[in-house]
């Protein structure tokens, strides 16, 4: 994670906005001339999509975990080396649909070739936590033939929000504000009814005003990160807005 500027705490709502709200689009970066820009774009692509891709290969194509690992590594190696993702045209559809169809084609070709895909396509394999992804497969139903896209979307959404939460935790930890992350998780991710602010205050030895301020700041940071990641993963303003609508539902439409 890149360094994050820390603003001074305001009296209300905690720190002033300090999260990077503008991140360049990796989709655009894939076609950039500068190698470091392409490398950064590739890194974001892998970070954003490796888990949905792995799960998709495992569940949709019912591949054994070792084969799915090879196919996932092979797919990203193929994508990064050939730079074929630079051919994506935002006017013709969403990037995620383009990626999924490309993955379908890649797996079909690999099956046709009948040979095991060489892990990483000959280059150093990416460092991916397949064990964690494997753990998330428990209880995951394979998609119905007519809802493959929705299934892939749902896994991408789960991955994106999970990534945002991890970044939120890490950033607050960096700032020495772990309580903020803990309050956010307790308030918004507890099963059942969320606790009252008074209960949270008692649990954390704070007063209710402090809880209110911490939560307001955490929510703001969470929303900023969600939007920043969506910006990063979309090609242009139109696709960004379409993805925001897909993720956040009708509230945005």
């Amino acid at each position, binding site marked *: 994670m890149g360094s994050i500027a820390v603003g001074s705490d305001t009296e209300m709502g905690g720190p002033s906005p300090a999260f990077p709200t503008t991140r360049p689009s990796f989709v655009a970066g894939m076609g950039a001339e500068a190698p470091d820009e392409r490398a950064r774009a590739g890194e974001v692509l892998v970070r954003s999509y490796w888990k949905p891709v792995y799960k998709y290969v495992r569940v949709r194509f019912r591949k054994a975990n070792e084969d799915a690992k090879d196919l996932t590594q092979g797919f990203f190696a193929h994508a990064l080396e050939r730079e074929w993702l630079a051919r994506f045209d935002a006017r013709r559809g969403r990037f995620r649909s383009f990626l999924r169809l490309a993955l379908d084609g890649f797996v079909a070709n690999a099956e046709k070739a009948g040979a095991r895909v060489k892990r990483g396509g000959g280059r150093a394999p990416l460092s991916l936590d397949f064990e*964690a992804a494997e753990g998330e497969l428990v209880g995951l139903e394979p998609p119905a033939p007519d809802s493959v896209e929705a299934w892939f979307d749902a896994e991408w959404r789960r991955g994106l929000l999970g990534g945002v939460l991890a970044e939120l935790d890490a950033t607050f930890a960096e700032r020495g504000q772990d309580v903020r992350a803990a309050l956010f998780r307790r308030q918004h991710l507890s099963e059942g009814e969320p606790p009252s602010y008074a209960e949270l205050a008692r649990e954390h030895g704070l007063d209710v005003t402090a809880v209110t301020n911490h939560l307001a700041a955490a929510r703001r940071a969470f929303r900023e990160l969600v939007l920043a990641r969506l910006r990063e993963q979309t090609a242009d303003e139109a696709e960004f807005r379409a993805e925001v609508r897909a993720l956040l539902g009708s509230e*945005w439409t």
Partner: protein
Amino acid sequence: MKPLSDEAVARLAELASKPEVPGGRYEVLERVGAGGMSTVYRARDRQLERDVAIKVVRDERRPGALAERLRQEAHILAALEHPSIPPVHEIGELADGRAYCVLRFVRGTTLARAELGPRNARLRLFLRLCEAVAYAHGRGVVHRDLKPDNVMLGPLGELYVMDWGIAGALDGADPGAGGTPGFSAPEQEAGAGGAVDARADVYALAGLLAFLASGRAPGANGALALGGLPRPLAAVIARGRERDPARRQPSALELARDVAAFLDQEPVSAYREGPLERAGRFLSKHRFVAWLVVGYLVLRALVFFVYRR
């Protein structure tokens, strides 16, 4: 790390969808309504410790045009200082770039859903509605979307005219499509461009009057069901619903005057009554005097019969 459950994903997506007003002054609490162009949230103003409404542009397909419309609405509301028109507190841009405005949070229910009591009470409510609309007309603003859903009633009987989203200047060009079938004036639906004036609101007010008087809203084609209403009241409504704006009451105040006259059992400008109707109205209005006269005549008759024996 444990993967997010479907429920957690849904909760976080909902959380992220709530608007984030820069500065941290407002905490968005819940979504309370949505229209074609905007979504309205109840939020807490943490500085002044009160609830406010935050209206956020909704349609991302034409964000620039709608943001401009929202700003226009905010400027119109800022120019209208009337107890029945909710004031605007602030306009701006959310962290995600959408335009928003902060308004008074109006508690209560819409006219479409409220329990409104007997007919005369409903008609008196209509008079207050006309006053607010006439005030806006006096300030050069035409609402263009008056309907039961856009009128709120507070718990203490307060009345608010809401949703000035497609309001426009009386002397300006038609701001574009909008309005609600059944309530929008024909010239507004035709998109005459610049031809919409206060009489378009008179048409919609007459539709509201029909709703309040009969409990039935106009059909989407503008058709009214006025059966069972007193003829003068039906005539007032029918005049307000004339297709030709020149044949309607010329202003909201004129329409209100007719309704007030009906309530006071006076003749209304929209209806020419016959001698029997006039007599009936007179007797109905001067019931006490009529009973006195009847009593006197009965007494005289009794005296006549007693002394004749």
